[in-house]
């Protein structure tokens, strides 16, 4: 799973498989982070708005 696992080999199948995996995880992670940060900012904005 990680290059520091002792079974890791830098061959094509590892790169393709793990590449695909981390690519997908990356998209999902980035998307989620984006949503959370945006929501956090918006909610604090709204909060402030609410006060004013």
């Amino acid at each position, binding site marked *: *799973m990680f290059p520091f696992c002792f079974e890791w080999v830098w061959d094509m199948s590892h790169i393709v498989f793990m590449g695909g995996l981390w690519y997908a995880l990356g*998209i*999902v992670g980035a998307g*989620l982070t984006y949503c959370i940060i945006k*929501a*956090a900012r918006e*909610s604090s904005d*709204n909060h402030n708005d609410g006060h004013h």
Partner: protein
Amino acid sequence: MDSALIPEGVKRCSLGRFSVWILALTAILLWGVIAMLLCWFKGLNQTNMNDAYGFALWIWADLAVIALGGGAFFTGFLKYIVGKDELKNIINYAVIIGVICYTSALLLLAIDVGQPLRSWFIFWHANVHSMLTEVAFCLSCYLVVLIIEFLPLLFENPKLDKKPFLRHLSHNMHEIMAVFAATGAFLSFFHQGSLGGVAGVLFGRPFAFREGVFIWPWTFFLFTWSAAACGPCFTILITRLTEKVTNKKLVKDNVVDLLAKISGWMLGTYIIAKIFDTWYWAAYTLPKQGFSLIDFYSNNPFYGIWILVAEIVICGIIPAAILISSGGRKNKRLFMTAIILAVIGVCINRWVMVLQTMAAPVMTFEGWFMYYPSWQEVATTILPVAYGAIFISFAYRYLPIFPQERELNPID
């Protein structure tokens, strides 16, 4: 009492009645939990599996629920990628069913493995050449995606919706849902396929083995395809069942009709591919290994040619024909028959790919291996059903799953 949690503008049964219903389901759930604990603490000798049946009821259940949960990715794919916007009226439910199916599958796998505490080795010491590794990775990643798809709906609960952060989060996630859906579809394509690959790559098991392209046997594509075809049918089936139980119309006919029509075409094309696959397997793959088709459908008390007919004709061609024709879809009885047959069909397919593969002898001096599950296996397989029903009950009660419910069931 719990009215604050119930979405606005819809009617729900009394809390008392709801509690009784949940209690009844919990009883079934507990039965399964007891069996599950027995398996964990006493070991898999609690099952009727044996050295000829390393894979049995649970693996079938896994494959089946994942195929049936395929409605989530395919409906998502249709809505977000293809742009069939009407499907927004059913996508929530498809996602919920998906979440249930996928969590159930993971639970069953956790019971099924001999050393559950080591099951994370599949990730840590991953063998990238194994179809099961691919399944494990894609399946768990996709479950994350499904949960992400489910979260906005959860946040729409009246109580949670009051929190600005969650409301915004829900809104934002809705906005980029296409990205998630696309990733989900990508992952689903692979794990559905890999599940097919699980059986198809077994070159020591002529019943399951299929040739293919590159590293993927034909079953890889057939599984994805059939999940895409039959998953939505299961979504429709559960929707209709929910309507029956709640005694309300929840989704408009045109939405269901659209989904069913697409399913019909998917099923139709799938079954053609399946027939071609079966023919190629029988005519070319098997004889090379010294087998003929009938070897796998004779000399045993259960697996006859009937099962092939049931899978391909009765649960394949017939429902496909009904679902493709608009007349068939209009006729309520025919329509439901087709939906049920399609669901059964994919279950039979997963059954034979797992159980018949184990049953059929390969060495000439061995006979057929027959198996029936122990009560522990049955109970743990029913456990997800109870769990699913409870999940749906709560979700239906407290979340605005069906956008058309208010319109279809106005409160006076």
